[in-house]
């Protein structure tokens, strides 16, 4: 009985598995294959990771931006999620609405909106100048700063949602109990609430970091052509210089680094639990 039931389950997921095999795993294997066969068989493309300064630079830029973006996004996201978990029902609905509203705007429109706000004659610079706070306009966009602003803005909902969903499961009376037993508000937060919200923080960190690694449009537009991240270079190799071996090598490396970071995290936390599979 039990065994036949499990066979039914396998049958039920078979179409999904087949779909994944044909449209996901097969092309992925092809990408890996090209990376070791084009232009000549071997690991020549992967050697570029070691001996090519341009690729070093691009990888370092990518990692630096990802780490900065993830840190800011998760801290800011935590604050927003905490506020959402504490306020009343009406305010929460509004907060959620505002959060999701930005999520629905195209990434392109958001990038242009940031350009308009942050450019030298934009509202931020002219405002600061009129208030007499600065003499010369600040460079807020078309550089790494602009890229990080744009990326944090894009990623914020991705951080808020898992943290918030984790916080709704935290028993509020535990904090009250700590306070009752003599803990200061800060102690109660740091010793009770923060550790309980750790799974949410980890989930948010993974999500934001992995998303940031492959970011393309925002850096390309807000970086003014000077902040080249890995995906943009993949596009250049793939579409402009037609060095598909190099492009697929970089794409594969990107994939491996995502898997590697997941594996590293998995050593310390139970990922299934974090993403609610258990």
């Amino acid at each position, binding site marked *: 009985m039990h065994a036949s039931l499990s066979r039914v389950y396998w049958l039920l997921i078979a179409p999904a598995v087949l779909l994944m095999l044909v449209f996901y795993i097969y092309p992925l294997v092809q990408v890996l294959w090209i990376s070791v066969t084009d232009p000549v068989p071997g690991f020549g493309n992967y050697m570029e990771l070691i001996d090519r300064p341009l690729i070093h630079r691009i990888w370092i830029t990518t990692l630096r931006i990802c780490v900065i973006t993830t840190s800011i996004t998760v801290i800011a996201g935590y604050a927003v999620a905490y506020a959402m978990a504490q306020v009343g029902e009406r305010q929460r609905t509004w907060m959620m609405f505002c959060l999701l509203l930005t999520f629905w705007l195209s990434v392109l429109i958001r990038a242009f909106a940031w350009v*308009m706000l942050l450019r030298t004659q934009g509202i931020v610079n002219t405002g600061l100048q009129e208030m007499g706070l600065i003499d010369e306009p600040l460079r807020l966009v078309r550089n790494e700063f602009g890229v990080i602003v744009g990326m944090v803005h894009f990623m914020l909902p991705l951080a808020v949602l898992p943290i918030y969903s984790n916080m709704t499961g935290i028993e509020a009376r535990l904090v009250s109990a700590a306070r009752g037993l003599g803990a200061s508000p800060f102690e109660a937060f740091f010793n009770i609430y923060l550790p309980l919200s750790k799974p949410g923080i980890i989930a948010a960190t993974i999500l934001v970091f992995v998303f940031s690694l492959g970011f393309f449009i925002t850096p390309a537009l807000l970086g003014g*052509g000077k902040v080249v991240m890995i995906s943009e270079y993949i596009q250049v190799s793939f579409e402009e210089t*037609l060095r598909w071996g190099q492009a697929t090598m970089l794409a594969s490396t990107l994939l491996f680094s995502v898997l590697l970071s997941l594996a590293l995290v998995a050593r310390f936390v139970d990922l299934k639990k974090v993403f609610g599979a258990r």
Partner: protein
Amino acid sequence: MSLIKTLYEKDLYPEIEDSAESDFARDCIQIASERLAKGEIDRRTFMKAIAFLGAAPAVMTLGGKTAQAAEEVVVVNWGGPAVEAYTQAFGVPFEKATGVKVVIDGTGPLGSKIKAMVDANAVTWDVCDTGTGTTLVLEKQGVLQKIDYGIVDKSKMQEKFAYEYGCANYMFSFILAYNKTKVPSAPTGWADFWDLEKFPGYRTLRKQPNGMLEACMMAAGKDKDSIYPIDLDLAIGKLKEIKDYVIAWGSGSQSQELFRTGEVIMGDIWHTRANLLNQETNGDVTWTWEQGIVTAGMWNVPNNNPAGTKTAMEFIASAQDPEQQLVLFNAMGNGPANPAAAAQVPDDKKYIDPGQPENLAKQVLQNGPWYQEDSGVRNLTNDELSREMWLDALSS
């Protein structure tokens, strides 16, 4: 001619005709070929049918036949208004003259798409409208056919734009554009562009080095005749001098946007974009032809193109007609590639035509072959190496 060829092949390879397995498929192809010849189906349907029958190799032996039966030539450009403009300029006249239908496909002949088509042996495009950069990259990949200068007339274009694997379709220039209201005086060349003291503010250069390296060389004091061979270290060194004040543009619209938002005071951009800016700012943004770099839009023919080499070349040759090029110029502002067209450009539009003798005299013709040459580093061409060095310097 084709009969002789077919007989010869049949005699040589009787198994193609007689092997039981391919009989049905072959029969279907024959029927399709006949219908195609009678005009009952178009070539695309025919090719689809062939592909569906998995009989592409069999068709190869009918090569002579299908090439002769070519009833349409598919010309790919970048879409939008270019579809209508190319139809009027080149499509209608070619159709009238030869009876071969011209299909203008606006999906954009990306180099990667052309390579993928040729690699997969599923080419559906005959003539592609690309640039010098793409032509050189595709040539190295070995996916293009040589231009047949027996059919295409070399004298109807600037000699420098008659590449082995591509030839000029129209001309355009990289020029120094500037916003009059934001510079103390009109800059007169790349030395001014590099002068941060006299012209403080941000500038825009392209993300790709093509058309920029020449400006760097002139900024370094080389005169127009001694730009090539480009000294890459010198040119990239010049970029590094001003790079903190450079915002890079990727697409033409991006270069226009940077002037619109007031982020830059000058730029090395395409003259067509400068002209649009000139119109929309009532002349605030303008440009100089001085030390401009003239380059060309390129016709490419991918390997194994469906209409056959001859038809594709004939189309390209037909599009060399000055009258046709003027239609395109009037519709889109693409400078005629044929020098004979220059005199026919209306007087009030001569100032936007890079090919006018007085404009040409101020500019440099880009030297494509230099980009193809081996750079001496890791088997890369100058084109490939300069792309890397340029991006590295920009992002450093």
